[in-house]
């Protein structure tokens, strides 16, 4: 039982990270129908920028975090303007290849700037482990899970109450109609890339004290975030959250009880099964045209 709780907590923490990355995928997909394979690189840039700002420039952690999030959001906006915006109406295959190219490019730049070594960030609130029902919890895990909950609240308010959130939903539903009622869809696209990059950066910063960060950490995180988004039904941000948490927990249980060597395979086995049986995702109403 203690083991189970331990795996569950570890799974929730991982899952929260996949969920945040997955929401980023869903947001960009909604606004532009682009699957952004560079999403994982936002995670890496977030973590690495904080490392750079604190270690190299001597900024305090509290100042470095917002700077890193803003910087990553800027990278997301640049990506949209310099690449995606130039190939409107391109086929999904073309768009996939472009975003893969961008992810390789960003990873390469990070490799040149920071080398191939691992970097650690200090935990936000101390190292001491807490014990709950016999399972020890890293306080950083609580930061991760709390951030996910806050993020969900923020997204709910953003999409339901604010002008930009509503405009984003309208654009996702029908870009042409959105333009007719006066929504600047080009700006909405830019906004979705910026926001989604900021989310990725957040995930990267939150998780860096637990998993360390390095130039290629985004590859697996990005792919698993993509799994989370598809599990939840592409283009459904809250579905992506459920998908991510489910994936994280299953992965932790599988690596605890079955084999840790195959923990990275869990997400992909699940996704292959889901895609063959129910490609529209687990958390969407059936019948929506997804395939």
């Amino acid at each position: 039982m203690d083991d189970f709780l331990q795996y569950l907590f570890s799974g929730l923490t991982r899952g929260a990270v996949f969920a945040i990355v997955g929401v980023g995928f869903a947001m960009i997909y909604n606004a532009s129908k682009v699957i952004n394979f560079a999403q994982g690189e936002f995670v890496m840039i977030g973590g690495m920028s904080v490392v750079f700002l604190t270690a190299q420039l001597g900024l305090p952690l509290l100042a470095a975090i917002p700077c890193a999030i803003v910087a990553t959001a800027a990278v997301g906006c640049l990506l949209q303007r310099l690449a995606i915006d130039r190939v409107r109406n391109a086929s999904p295959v073309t768009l996939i290849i472009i975003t893969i190219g961008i992810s390789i490019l960003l990873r390469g730049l990070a490799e040149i700037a920071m080398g191939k070594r691992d970097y650690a960030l200090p935990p936000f609130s101390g190292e001491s482990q807490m014990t709950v029902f016999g399972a020890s919890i890293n306080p950083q895990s609580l930061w991760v899970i709390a951030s996910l909950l806050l993020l969900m609240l923020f997204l709910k308010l953003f999409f339901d109450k604010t002008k930009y959130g509503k405009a984003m939903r309208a654009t996702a539903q029908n870009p042409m109609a959105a333009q007719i009622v006066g929504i600047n869809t080009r700006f909405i696209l830019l906004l979705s890339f910026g926001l989604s990059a900021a989310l990725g950066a957040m995930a990267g910063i939150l998780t860096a004290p637990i998993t360390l960060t390095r130039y290629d950490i985004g590859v697996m995180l990005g792919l698993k975030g993509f799994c989370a988004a598809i599990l939840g039904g592409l283009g459904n941000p809250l579905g992506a959250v459920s998908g991510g948490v489910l994936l994280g927990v299953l992965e932790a249980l599988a690596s605890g009880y079955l084999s840790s060597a195959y923990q990275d395979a869990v997400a992909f086995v699940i996704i292959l099964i889901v895609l063959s049986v129910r490609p529209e995702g687990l958390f969407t109403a059936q019948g929506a045209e997804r395939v």
Partner: protein
Amino acid sequence: MSSPVARKRRVDPGLLLLAAILLALPLILPNRFYYDLSVKLMINAIVCIGLNLLIGYAGQISLGHAAFFALGGYASALLAERLGFPSLLALVCSAALVGLLAYLVARPILRLKGNYLAMATLGFGIIVSILVNQELWLSGGPDGKPVQAFSLFSFSISKVEHWYFIVALALLAAVWLALNLINSAFGRALRALHSSETAAAAMAIDIAATKARVFVVSAIFAAVAGSLFAYAERFITPGEAGFIRSIELVTMVVLGGMASIYGAVVGAGVLTLLGQALANFSEYKHVILGAILVTVMVFMPLGLVPTLRHMFKGAVAK
């Protein structure tokens, strides 16, 4: 215009040109290193020709083709080593096994389109890559696996100069096969499928079967190339199955030109040589690879060979 019947009989001029180049190349290759580089280049070209049938002609994506390449190599090596198969038989059987696997994978996932297909092939590739890394008893794990020398009628072929000619022949065969395939009813079905699945279905083309068939064909091209690679290098590592390797293969196809057989050869050539030229600046390799991929897709979405062909035709027309 010549009639279609007459065109069928004529050997493609590009094929003759390629044969001439491959035959003349050894005259200027200074040492074994360059022979080895040429062998790798041609092996990449064979994979890309198959992959281009899938991506360029049929419009389906695969982000996991390195898995078929590596499985072909490992299967050949294992059949020869553990079961004592003669080399050539091991190569043929490994290609058949990989083809069968591709068929089993294809049926459920090729119903998917675009982004979902990308995810499914990517997931398949990563699972294979993890398996190859973890199953030490079978694959030798991350350190790689030595491969027995290729032997034919009790002659053992291990010299790289000999491999050059074997792989060159295989490349010419691959080009010839692909050209024939493209100009057959099957090739026309592929292109119809690419432009509109609904219209193709209305013309009585069996969409699911056609997609599965092209997927299997492209997997077999990769498997045969993987076997040749394993035999020529006498060694194979899990890196050959990796996600990055799959992306590299897609990059070659895209750079050379979608829906162009010679484009696949050119793309494989350019990127293989570039990779070698950048070997001493390995930290810049990824930046340059990524930059090429993005620039080509944004500014030259057709790829090198089709773009140059259009420019050439335009110049002649003027």
